[in-house]
């Protein structure tokens, strides 16, 4: 199981939990599990999210491996100028 | 609208073109004789990207009518280098990394040359006020001022 930190305004979809646990070994599995287990997260995931794994921010990289002891933080889709 | 025939000299070459009576010198340079080094950044004389010299005087070519070039001597960025030999200012801008996107660079070089011809030994403040009509959005001007001063010094000792 991987612990995923959920930002504040998405917690309506996780019964207020700041962190949820899902079974996932990579970015893609994690997003699929989150969408399935917490359907309220789906619209934001479809609009775009980034994922920080152990301090590294990934914008889109489905097969980035995630280990159970990784720090995983869901983030909005990064943009820049 | 009847077009006008204009005979002028551009960078020392005799040049003829036809233009509309209300056409700007900038449009004539760019669209009639293919000298696209002068840029249109605003069309209102506020940015200096279209700087050229008209009979030795620094002007915004977007504020000059093409017809005013009749019998005049026009200097543009394309005439700054002497064949394959860069002008000291051009080399100095390269050496000091005084450009980023480069869109303002032709205008700033033309303006700087006009400055150094008039004031070969300007203070930094004089350079800054002289170039106040040439907008640069990339560099913060710091490296530009250094490049102009270095060129000024080289020109003085040449």
């Amino acid at each position, binding site marked *: 199981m991987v612990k995923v930190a959920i930002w504040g305004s998405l917690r309506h979809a996780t019964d207020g939990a700041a962190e949820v646990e899902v079974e996932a070994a990579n970015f893609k599995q994690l997003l699929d599990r989150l969408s399935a287990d917490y359907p309220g997260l789906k619209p934001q995931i479809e609009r775009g999210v980034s994922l920080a794994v152990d301090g590294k921010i990934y914008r889109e990289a489905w097969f980035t491996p995630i280990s159970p002891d990784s720090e995983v933080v869901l983030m909005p889709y990064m943009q820049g*100028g | 609208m009847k077009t006008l025939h204009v005979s002028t000299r551009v960078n020392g070459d005799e040049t003829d073109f036809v233009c509309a009576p209300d056409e700007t010198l900038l449009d004539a340079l760019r669209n009639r004789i293919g000298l696209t080094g002068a840029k249109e950044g605003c069309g209102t004389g506020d940015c200096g990207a279209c700087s050229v010299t008209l009979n030795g005087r620094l002007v915004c070519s977007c504020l000059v009518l093409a017809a005013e070039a009749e019998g005049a001597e026009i200097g543009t960025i394309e005439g700054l280098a002497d064949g394959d030999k860069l002008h000291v200012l051009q080399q100095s801008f390269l050496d000091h990394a005084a450009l980023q996107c*480069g*869109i303002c660079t032709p205008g700033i070089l033309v303006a700087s040359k006009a400055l150094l011809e008039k004031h070969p030994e300007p203070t930094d403040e004089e350079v800054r006020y002289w170039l106040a009509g040439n907008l640069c959005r990339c560099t913060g001007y710091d490296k530009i001022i250094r490049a102009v001063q270095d060129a000024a010094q080289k020109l003085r000792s040449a």
Partner: protein
Amino acid sequence: MAFDQQQKRDFKVVGTRPVRPDGIDKVTGRAMYGADLSAPGMLVARVLRSPHAHAKIVKIDISKAEGLPGVKAIVTSADLGRPEDEALRDTQDNCLAYDKVLYDGHPVAAVAATTPEAAKAALAAIEVTYEKLPHVTDVDAAMKAGAPVVLDGRAYEEVPAGWSQNVTNHCEFGHGDLEAGFAKADLILERSFKTEATHQGYIEPHACLASVGPDGRGELWCCTQGQYMVRETCAGILEMDASQLKVTPSEIGGGFGGKTTVFIEPVALALSRKAGRPVKLVMTRDEVFRASGPTIQSSTDVKIGMTRDGRITAAEATLRYSGGCYPNMTCMMGAQAAFAAYDLDAVRTYGWNALTNRPKEISYRAPGAPTAIYAVENVLDEMCQELGLDPIDVRLTNAADKGTKSSYGVTFQDIGLKTALEAAKAHPHYSAPLGPNQGRGLSCGFWFNFGGNSSVTLSVNTDGTVNVTEGNPDIGGSRASISMIAAEELGIPYEHVRTLVADTASIGHSDTTDGSRVTFMVGLATIKAAREATQKMCARAAAIWGIEPDAVEWIDGAAQPAGPNAGKFPPMSLAEIAATSLKTGGPIAGHCESTADGAGVSFGVHLCDIEVDPETGFTKVLRYTVVQDAGKAIHPDYVEGQMQGGAAQGIGWALNEEYIYGEDGLLQNPGFLDYRIPVASDLPPIDTVIVEVPNPGHPYGVRGVGETSIVPPLAAIANAVSRAAGVRLHELPMSPPKILKAVMAKG
């Protein structure tokens, strides 16, 4: 060794300051920008724009205009389909309004004609019947229930009930117990701020040359930060296959984020398709201001609690952003960035976005961060004043470091904030004396940076030179840094490498040049491509020597036997291997088409001294110093250039630049005369200190450097002005009338 593992190495090329490869073209006027290309038979296009802030389009009658001499094509939104994708539909509607105009300058129709005069005459002959609607241009007004609704049905599920339909986003970030944190504070300050929208102010207006043939194939030349983005967007709008639309990026005359979308390109393509001739479309400066993509307008509340000795106990911020008439996510970036510089036990940020009758905001250097951090750093400075604490010491006390859990949830790896703060403190600027009416201000700044996708091909030519082909437009000197990285990896002179930015048909997809990603990501891809090429060259040398390929390694620009057991052969240089390459197995190239992440966040600290004239409210910037962590500076000149350029833009944002909308909802200052960006005489020399705390996600330690520099100036200047004037200002820009008013009110 893992690819991204850092090696202690002595760089030969990286860190030097060679002349940029595009330099000569740019100092001689030869460089070709968006408006500089023409084609035989070319038509010129002009755009008809809304004179209203908000109106229903009842009817567009083009019949009179169509019949005028020289007019070859007129397009309106009726000439385009309706994309299913909402974001694409917004982009299309922003290029040609659908059923409503949403801001002053919103395009309604476009004409292609044989001359500019004919196009202008045709615009005047197009009859548009509008039904004016009430408008709203202020973020606070737009959020209130009952405000004129810009677009309805666009609120995301996260927006609670009770707000205007204009409110599209709401987000919240942070951790810890705020109430407990504030209870521990000796001083709690709560302040509200407002900042006006600003514009990137690139000197080159948007420009393009489009050509679509009767077979439906198209070519497009344009100034953009992303030719692939342009291709995908235009192909989507015009229902073309991406393969049939070739987009060539011109030299780009500044972007800063503003050229990361399309405004005119689909329109020019539609006109060209209809007319069957090439069409050139160039925006005027007035059009750029009214109808490209300025920043958000912001309204912010900040509350911070601090102990007497300067430790922050709790911090809270609410950001209300308006990014114009279509939804955007910039408030989320601001809400994440607001307190990123600090190690906090209790922190909460809330972001809101509201639609207004303004053009849709597009990124401008670190989008969302400058206005959020401006408010935070302003309150911090006031607290330092009130508690009699040194502003750098307070920031050092609270500074985020490796292992800090950031306010947006991520634990930082190696970061350079403390190093930058210490460098700022040690700089002579910080201890220099100040005169009367002078003030010193400082601020921290932060940006995320990201990697993304890019493609690179590195070809080894038979004469021993190298071409790097890549897909990311060069805005700030990236062709120089990419060439340097290739030279470093291959062990050949910089002068032997030429880097070219290719069109969409010549190399694979590359994400837009944004997010400070090019030197990081394209550089990384170049390293990988170079290593693939060196591997191939080692194999060729091995074949020539008759030994195993893995018995050869690449050292100092040459293939060499790996250890004494491999055999005794003199090193074989790149040039030697290249010379025989067509006989030893064919052309040699290395490729990298990939996604890279781990860009590494970037922090900076700015110091400034200003003098306020108490008689006029005019502010003169006397001295300015930028300290920034670059991870590893590839070409220090252009790193400094990014630091200085961002500082200058931020100074403009702080002191002068603003979008001024009248009661009628029309933009009152769409020109460089009235929207005044800093000129040379407004600025002092801008001193730079590059600190290098290597990014663990890059083999050389590179971090993005392009965006962080615009973040600190807003607060650095505001803090300096507030200290000099003896009164806090809570609004940007701090133009002379506002400062004078504050000084007079103080008495």
